[in-house]
C-alpha cells in the first residue's frame, strides 16, 4: 500500500456551475460577436439572463418550447452563428432530442447546448425536473462532445473551449453551490483531456460533475487507512480520455462516480475504455435504475448513494476484487 500523503484540497464552497456558466457566457459575448444565446423560459434559473441583460439583441427566449429552441440553434449554426441554447438539462435533452439528432448531430453543426439543474441535487422540485439520463442521451448523439464540469473554474474554461471547438457540444451544469477544486487562474482545460487531481497507486477514483469533489473527500478517508487513491476529474465523458483511463487501470482497480443513472453514463464510458486496454475490476457509484423524489439536496444525495462515503465503500469493494 502507498505511503505518500496526498495533496490537500481545501474544497472551499464556491459558486454553482450554472452561475459560472452565466458569467462565462457574458464574458464570451464581449469578445465573440457570433455568440447567440437561446433559452426556453428558464433564463433566471439557467443564468443565461446574465448574457441577456448585457446583449439583449443576441438573446432569444423561445418560450416553453425546447424542441423548437434546439431546431433554431441548428439553423443559427448552419448560418454561421455560435448558438448556446439552455434549459434544465432534462427538458433540453428529453424534449429536444430528435431535433438535436436531426438539426445538429446529423449535419454536425456548430451548436452548443448547456443544460442546468443536472442530476438530483436540485432537491425539492423532484424527479420531473431532474435529469438522470442526460449523459447517456448526449453520448448517444454521434459527433457530440459531452462535458460535466465539477466547479466554477473548470466550467468557465470549458465554456470558452466549447466556443472555440468546431462541432456540437452538450454540457451539464448544476443548481447547488459546489466546492472549488481548481486554482482561480487555472485555464489548463481541454475538451477530452482529463485532469489527474491526485496521483495514487492502489485504486483510481474517477468522477465528473459534483462527484469529483466527493472522490477527493473519499481519497482523504482512504489515505488515512493507508490506501493510496488516484483521483481523476473526467470532465469530458465524450470523447473520453482513454490515456487517462489506461493510467487509472495501472493502479489495478477503478471506482467511477457520477450523478446519473448507471446506464450509459461515465461508468459505462470508462468500463468500455478500460476493457479495450487492460481490464481491471471496476465498481460504480451512481443512481441504480430509479428516479429520485422531493427532499433537500443533501437528503437525496445521501439516500441515493452519491456521497464520499459511498465512494469509499466502493473502493473497499473493488480493492477486495483486485487481482
Amino acid at each position, binding site marked *: 500500500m502507498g505511503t505518500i500523503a496526498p495533496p490537500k484540497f481545501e474544497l472551499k464552497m464556491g459558486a454553482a456551475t450554472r452561475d459560472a456558466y452565466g458569467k462565462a457566457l457574458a464574458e464570451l459575448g464581449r469578445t465573440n460577436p457570433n455568440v447567440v444565446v437561446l*433559452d426556453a*423560459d*428558464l*433564463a*433566471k*434559473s439557467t443564468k443565461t*439572463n446574465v448574457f441577456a441583460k448585457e446583449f439583449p439583441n443576441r438573446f432569444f*427566449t*423561445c*418560450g*416553453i*418550447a425546447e*424542441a*423548437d429552441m434546439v431546431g433554431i440553434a441548428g439553423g443559427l449554426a448552419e448560418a454561421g452563428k455560435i448558438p448556446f441554447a439552455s434549459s434544465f438539462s*432534462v*427538458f433540453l435533452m*428529453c*424534449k429536444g432530442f430528435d431535433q438535436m439528432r436531426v438539426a445538429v448531430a446529423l449535419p454536425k453543426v456548430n451548436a452548443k447546448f448547456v443544460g442546468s439543474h443536472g442530476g438530483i441535487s436540485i*432537491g*425539492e*422540485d*423532484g*424527479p*420531473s*425536473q431532474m435529469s438522470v439520463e442526460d449523459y447517456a442521451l448526449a453520448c448517444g448523439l454521434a459527433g457530440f462532445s459531452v462535458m460535466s464540469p465539477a466547479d466554477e473554474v473548470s466550467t468557465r474554461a470549458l465554456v470558452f473551449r466549447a466556443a472555440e471547438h468546431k462541432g456540437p457540444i452538450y454540457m451539464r451544469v448544476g443548481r447547488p453551490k459546489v466546492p472549488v477544486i481548481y486554482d482561480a487562474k487555472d485555464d489548463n482545460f481541454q475538451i477530452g483531456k482529463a485532469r489527474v487531481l491526485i496521483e495514487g497507486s492502489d485504486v483510481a477514483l474517477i468522477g465528473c460533475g459534483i462527484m469529483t469533489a466527493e472522490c477527493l473527500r473519499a481519497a482523504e478517508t482512504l489515505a488515512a487507512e493507508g490506501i493510496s487513491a488516484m483521483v481523476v476529474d473526467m470532465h469530458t465523458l465524450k470523447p473520453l480520455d482513454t490515456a487517462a483511463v489506461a493510467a487509472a487501470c495501472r493502479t489495478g482497480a477503478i471506482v467511477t462516480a457520477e450523478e446519473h443513472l448507471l446506464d450509459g453514463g461515465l461508468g459505462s464510458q470508462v468500463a468500455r475504455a478500460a476493457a479495450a486496454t487492460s481490464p481491471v475490476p471496476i465498481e460504480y457509484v451512481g443512481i441504480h435504475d430509479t*428516479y429520485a*423524489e*422531493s*427532499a*433537500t439536496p443533501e*437528503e*437525496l444525495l445521501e*439516500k441515493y448513494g452519491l456521497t464520499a462515503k459511498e465512494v469509499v465503500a466502493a473502493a473497499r469493494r473493488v480493492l477486495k476484487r483486485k487481482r
Partner: protein
Amino acid sequence: MNGNLPELKRIANRMRHNIVKMIGAAGSGHPGGSLSATELVAALFFKVMRHDPKKPAWPDRDRFILSKGHACPVLYCAYAEAGYIDPALLMTLRKLGSPLQGHPDRRFLPILEASTGSLGNGLSIGMGMALAGRLDQKDYRVYVMLGDGECQEGQVWEAAMFAGYHKLDNLCAIVDYNKIQLDDWVAKILDLEPLAAKWESFGWRTLTIDGNNMQKVLDAFEQAKMTSGKPTVIIANTIKGKGVSFMENNVEFHGAAPNPDQVKKALEELDKEAAVLA
C-alpha cells in the same frame, strides 16, 4: 359533491389559506399559478365532476389532470378538502418521504390521474383517457388544466388538433390564462394571441371567462358538458397570485415561497376575505 355558490367561495378561500401555508412551510414551490387556478379547481372538485373520495379508483369517475404540474398545491388542497388525503399531510409538501411531491408523482400518490411537471404532456394523456371512455361506451368526462406559458409547447397543439379531429366532446381543456410564465409576462416572452381563435381553428368550442369568478366558472363548465360534437376549451382569464395582494400579477411569485412574514400577511388578507364570505 354539490356545493352551492357561497360554500364554493368559502372552499376556495380555505384552499388559498392552505396553499400559502403549505408553500411557506416547504420553503419552495409555486404560489402564483396555484392561487390563480383556485376557483377553477374548487368548482371541478366540489360541483362539476362526478367522483367519490371513498372510491378513488371508480372506473366511471370524471378525471382531472393538472398538466401544469408545478401548481400541485392547489390540487393537493382540493384532495384534502374533499377527503382523499389527510389535511395534515399538506404541511409535509416537498419533504423527504411525503406523498405530496414537488410535482405530482403517482408513485407516491396513486390517486393522481397523471404524473406531471414536464409541461406539455397532460392534454395528450387526458385525450387518451377520453378516447378509452368513448371506446368503452362510458360517460365519464376528462378535464385537463394547462398553463398559458405551457401552451407554447408544440405537443399541446398536436393534441388540440387530434381532439378536434376526433370530436372528443368528453374532453374539456382549461387554460389558466394568468398572463405570466416563469421568466416574465407571456406577452413579452411569446404571445399566444389570438388564443381563442387558435383553439377554434383546431375544432374546439371556446368559452372565454373570468376564471376567478365562481359563478362564471360554474356556468362555463355547465356549457362544456352540454356541448356535443367537439371538445371544449375554457380560456379562463385569471390573476396570477389571486387573493394575496403582494403576489397578484407579480412575476416574482411564480416560483418563490413566501417567507414567514409574508405568510402571516397573506393569511391576514385571506382571513378578511373569509369574514366577508362567512
